[in-house]
Structures are given as structure tokens and as C-alpha cells.
């Protein structure tokens, strides 16, 4: 029965990781637009990447 002391933290840790992933997904706005991301894989990867213009998203969230 002592094995349960190992299994409980493991199971909770795993669930907590999933919860963390969920919170990250919600926070990054993935639940607000469920349509456009589905279209992106159909597009070719562009050769170029945007210039080093920092994304203002982080700052916005605090605003």
C-alpha cells in the first residue's frame, strides 16, 4: 500500500501539468478564435520571418 504515496503525487503532478497547459491555452487566446488556426497549416511556411519587431502582446496583457 505504501506505493500509493508515490502514485498520488505523480497523478496530481500530471493533472497539474495538464491544468497548467489549459491555463496557458486560455490565456494566450486560443479559445477566442478556433477557426483561423485551423487554416494556418494549409499555408506554406514563408521563407522569411518578420523583422525583429518585438511582439507587443505581453505588454498588452498587463495593460
Amino acid at each position, binding site marked *: *500500500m505504501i506505493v*500509493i504515496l508515490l502514485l*498520488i503525487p505523480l*497523478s*496530481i503532478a500530471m*493533472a*497539474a501539468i*495538464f*491544468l497548467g497547459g*489549459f*491555463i496557458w491555452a*486560455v*490565456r494566450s*487566446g486560443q*479559445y*477566442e*478564435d478556433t*477557426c*483561423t488556426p*485551423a*487554416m*494556418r497549416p*494549409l*499555408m*506554406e511556411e*514563408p521563407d*522569411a520571418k*518578420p*523583422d525583429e*519587431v*518585438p*511582439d*507587443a502582446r505581453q*505588454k*498588452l496583457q498587463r*495593460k
Partner: protein
Amino acid sequence: MATLIAIRPGRNGLAETADDPVCPAATGCFHCGAPLRGGVIHSQERAFCCQGCRTVFEILAEHGMTDFYRFGTAAGVRVSNAVKKEEFKYLDDPAVRRQLVDFADDRITRVSFRIPSIHCIACVWLLENLFRLKPGVGHAHVNFPRKEVCITFENSRVTLGELVAFLASLGYEPELKLADLGNQARPRVSRRLWLQLGVAGFAFGNIMLFSISGYLGLDGFSGPALKMLFGWLSFALAVPVIIYSAADYWQAAWRGLRQRMLTIEVPIALGIAALAARSACEVFAGRGTGYFDSLSGLVFFLLCGKLFQQKTWHRLAFDLDYRSFFPLSITRKQNGAEERVSLSQLQVGDRIIIRNGELIPSDARLAAGPAMIDYSFVTGESVPVEKQPGDHLYAGGRQIGGTIEIETLKAVSQSYLTSLWNQQAFRKPRREILDTMINQYSRRFTKAVIAVAVGSALFWWFHDPSRALVSFTSVLIVACPCALALAAPFTLGTAQRVLARRKVFVRNTSVIETLARVDTVVLDKTGTLTAAGAGSVEFDGAPLTADEATWIFSLTRHSTHPCAVRIGEAVAVRAGSVAGEVRSFSEQPGAGMQGVVAGHEVWMGSAAWLASRNVAVDRSAAGVGSVVHLALDGRYRGSYTLPGALRPQTAELVSRLAADCELALLSGDNERERDQFRKLFGPFANLSFNQTPLGKLEFIRDLQKPGKTVMMVGDGLNDAGALQQSDAGVAVVESIGAFSPASDVIMAANMVPRLAEILRFSKTSVRVVRLSIMLSGLYNLVGVSIAARGQLSPVVCAILMPLSSVSVVVFACALTNWFGRRAGLDDTAAGHLNAEAQP
């Protein structure tokens, strides 16, 4: 603002998917697919319909982005007018700029635009790869359902005005309305709800794991130490649920109590509190694991219901006012030079230039040019009126025809039309109805529960005092109206979705309850019972060839008769807006007009007039409204039925509505058609014509005085007051996503004939809620009878709570869907209507 973009028709629907049909005509423009006619421009062995399309192609080709055309043949948006850079300079004015951008610092700016012409995957790709076309542009992110793009750019290399001008030159001109100024708060409600739901679900699942040994009676097997550990772990997991996930229920219950109202949240909060307190006591005392599984499950289910209820639709806004209708900028003429300025900078006495299709932003005097002003959206008047220099013009009218100059007399917010928004009805925000059906039940329910709880506590106090507290909390726990609280959200939420499938969008679920109570229906005429705008001009007869359309277009250009103007607008697209020379033109007032175009005699006019010239007129097509007959070279060709014509099935609609409710007609138009509507509505209906926007508001208020529940159905800004004042305001739109004044329901115009079914369906839905409430009451009765005896074990609780909730939800959803199908509001049953709506 002039519509620089010609969006192809058929794209206005609620495009949720990427497979928007694009029909590439083999002979069409390589960029936009428009049919090629005369003046074809070639570039790199490809044909284009206009200079604008060629330019976009060349920009793309230059940057190696012709992949664009692989996502959809002829996926481009036609750029009909050349975009001048100066046109958007006003956006770089610091005051305007500050109010438009989301974020800005010294180096970068982030801004979101709504771009109506986003229609396919190629658009998304192009906009997200904007950085390859325009140096200085960084990350761009498209939200397709909302048709929004969020762009980051470097201040040192691009200005806001340049960015917008560049987008416009590609065919993606952002929609900039007066309302975009100083209105940056975008609701982010659902994020919090999702997080609360996630936390509750996480706790629910894990606590269940710890509780299973208890359910199966394995406690003895695993030993008391483990049981205590499970109890403490459950407690730890339940704390965030109680504090964070259930936070809204605590607040709502507190608010309800402070207003002395026993809202549904009060018994819910009581139940959660009883569960938490009793479970905590058991855990602290080391007696058991408590009811934390039921607690988190309860919160989880409740939040699911809340999420289901809070369905929102992209691109629909229920609280727009005139500022969303007015453009952000106007062309001002100063010292002989034209400049684009923000509307907020407009001052009384300014000279401004209004082009074809543009809006008059404030009350003004016509300074130059004869004007044809279409007030249909503002006053409900269906026919454009001609104005001469010196005449007074009201804000909101749309100029049709040539360019005019006007001199403003009042500030935008002080104009005749916009002053409607200063009315009392607009002061208070649209009320959140507290007195919903569920709260009425809750009032009786809560009192009964507390009575039973206190009663059983008193009973045990005298018989076995140790069980008094147990039975008291047990009753509160088991009576927690989870199923009751879920009945309304799921029934009305399902009803909301059933209606939305037929393009009837309700603001929130309590609107359906109001719709079910409606006993008086007030209908607007123009745009509601009659189709508004040039789009509804219908031609009866063999389809016209492009040449014939050109002849008709040329002829109508010579007349200012409203019918001619409208027919001209209708055929303009077909004719490619190219007018030929008209010779020997003559017009007989009240009869018709004639002329020779390209050697062909074109006669247009009344049936009698054509008959008098020996044309065999087919009068069978004569519907309701005005009909203009057409003869080419002396032969009858067909007839135009003009706007003002009633929508199909209006007579049926009126008779069906009249069976259940009192009817009234409210029109800003003149009395021309009074007799026709008297016949339609019967001798007793209240018909009012020549109503001002303010008059309409007062008309509704008078109806409400004797306690009637009034539904107003209207479409224009002139109905805004009445829509706001009425109990249920229904805004009719020709295309979903088009501007509609603040309302409770937004409805596609083709659904107007089915209003009676919609009302009946709302009534049925409310009946389903009642049935579901009765079902959940049954569960509560069983639960309470167990609990009052003080025998509620965690297992019983853990079974009863989800069982009652799930069965009530399934019952409610299934029954509502079934009724929806029976009412013909589902896709399958109403398929034929769909076909009608999309010719």
C-alpha cells in the same frame, strides 16, 4: 467614406469556414475573378479587369508572393478606385492615432482593424505575410471569424496612415467608424469563465479519484490513515474551487440578498456553503472525506451551463449606435484644397465634400450641386429626395449620384438624428432582467427549502439532538438547485442555437423569455415589411444581356425619377457602370420615358403608357409596389418590380401574427400605401405613417403604459429609439454583420416572414424550461426526503447530483431541438426557404 472596395455579392453571409465558393470564370480577371469586359489590362500574360487589380498582382509578383493565387483562384479583392496616400493622413494626427491603436511606445505600435473584405484563406495568408511586402511591418495576426487583423509595426519606418493606405491599395481597406474612437475595451469575459471551468474540472476529476474507495466501501480495506490523507487532499483541491471557480455565485448571491431578491444564486450559494462547511468539519474531525467531490462537480456543471448560455456570435454587436454607422473621416474643403480629416475634428461651418454613396455626417446646408439624398435608413422614407443648393440636409442621408458640397450647421452629436441618443431610453444600459422565470421559481423554492431544513432540524433537536445539525445541512446540500439552475441555461441556450442556425440571433437567453411574453408586435415598414435598397429590384422576364443592361442603365441616367434611379443602381453592376450615349430622350411625368441608345429604342414606364404605344404588356407579374415595364424596339421585354414591394409571404405573416398578438405598423414613410396596408392589417390595426424617430419611441412607450409587452421590428437608425424602448427590439439586416442599431435580436431579412413561428417557438421553449424545472423538482423531493431523515451519505449525494443534472440537461436539450425541428426552424425542414433566400 467612399466604398473603395467592391466586394462581390454572396460573401456577406456568416462565413465560418474557409471553403467559401470562389467561382473562377475562365475569362475573369486573374486577380479578382470579375468578368472581363472591354479595356482588359494585361501584365505578365495575365488579364486583369482594372488597373487596381493589376497593381496588386504586380506588388505580389515582385515580392514572390504569387502563392496567393494558389490558395484560391482569383482570390483577390477588386480595388476599383485608386487609393491616394493623403486620404489616410488624418490617421497620423496624434489625437486620432492615440484613440485607434491598442498599444504604442517609442519604437512600435500595435493596432487592430476590422477588414470586411477578408473572405478566404488567401486573405489570411496575405495579411499575415504583410511583412514581406511592406518594410517596417512586423507580426500580423488574423482572426478570421471576426474579420479582424492585428498588426505590429515600427514607428520609424511606417506610419499608421501609410499602413492603412497600403492595406487599402491591396483591397483590404479597414473599416474605420466613428465608434472606433475612444472605444478600446474589448470584452474578455469568456477567458475567466474558461479558467474557472478548468480549475473546477481539474478538482472534480482528482477528488473523484480519492473518493472512489469511499464509494466502493473500501475504507476498511485501506485503513483510516489513508482515508484521512484523502480527506485532506480533497480539501486542498476543493479550496480553489470554492474561492475561485464559485466566486461569481458568491458575488451574485450577495448582490441578490442586498437587493432583497432571492435569485437562483442564493440557494446555490447556500448549498455550496453547506457542502463546504459540513465537509470541512468531517475532514478536520477525521471522520471522513466529506462531500468535496459533489461540491466540485456541482460547480463544474453549473459553470458548464453558464458557458453554454453565454454563446456569442462573431461579427454581431447588439449595442451599436449611430457612431458605428458614421465614417471616421470626411473630406473637408479649406482654402480651395481638399483634405481628409477625422470626423471629430469637424467644426460647424466647415465645407465638406460628399461623393456618391457617402453619408452626410451632420445637419448641413447644401452648398453646391443638386443632390439626391436617400434617407431610407434614417427616416424610413423609401424614395430618394432631390435637394437644391441652399436646402437643409439632415445627418445620416446618403448621397446618390454626383459629388456635392455641403456646409455643416451643427456638430455631429447635436444633429437632428443623433440627438435621439440623448433620450431617456438611452441613458440606462439595456436592463439585465433580474426577474427571470428561474428567479421567480427560486423565490418559492428557497423559502420552501429553508422551511424544510429548519423543520427537520427542529424535529431532530427534540428527538436526537446529535442529528439536528446533520439533517439541517443535508437538506441544504441535497436541495442545492443544480438541476434547477441548469434547466433554463440549457433549454434557452439550445433554443438560441436553433434560432441562430436560421440566422436569428438573440442577445442573450433572457430575450427568449421576453419573446415568449410578447403580446403586441409593432412592425416598421421600409426595410422590414418591404425590402430596402437597390438589391431588391427584381426583373421579371428573360434575363437581360449585358448590352441590354447598358442601354437601360444609360437611359435611367437621364432621369431623376426615383424609380429610374433605383433601376439604374440595380443594373449598374451588370452594365459595368458604362453609360452609352442617349439620343432623342423624352420623359412624360407619371407615364414613362424613352430614348435611343446604340440605335435601339428603349421605352420604360407604366403598363398603360406602353399599352398606348401598342406594346403587348404582360400584367400578370404586377406584384405589390411599383412596377416599371420595359420595351425594347417596340417589343415587350419584361418588368421591374421596385423596392417598396412587400417581402414574400407578408400577408401570411400578418394573419399569423394577428392570431396571437395585437399588431401595429409604424412607418417614417408617407401615407401613399395606407390603403394597401389597411387591407393587409385589417380594419382595427393601428397604422401610423410619417413618424419621426422620436415619435416612434413615444408610440412604443404609449403602448407599454397599459402593461403590454411590446416587440418592435425595425431596421434603420430611425427605429433605434423604438427598438431601445421596446421590451424586445428586433433589428432586421439584409446581410449578417451589416450595421444594425442596438437591439435584442438581430435577424436576417429573409426570416421576417417567419416571425410568428419564432414567437411560437420561444413560447414552447419556455414551456420546456417549466417541464425541466418540474423534473428537477422531483429529484429534489426524493433527495430532501432522504436528507430530512439525516441519512445522506456521500455516495447518495455523489450519485444524485450528477444524475439529476445530466438527465435534466439531456431532457431540456433534446426536447428543445425536437420542437425546433417541428416548428420548421431547423435546417432540414426549412431547406426550401434557404434556397429562396439565395438566388
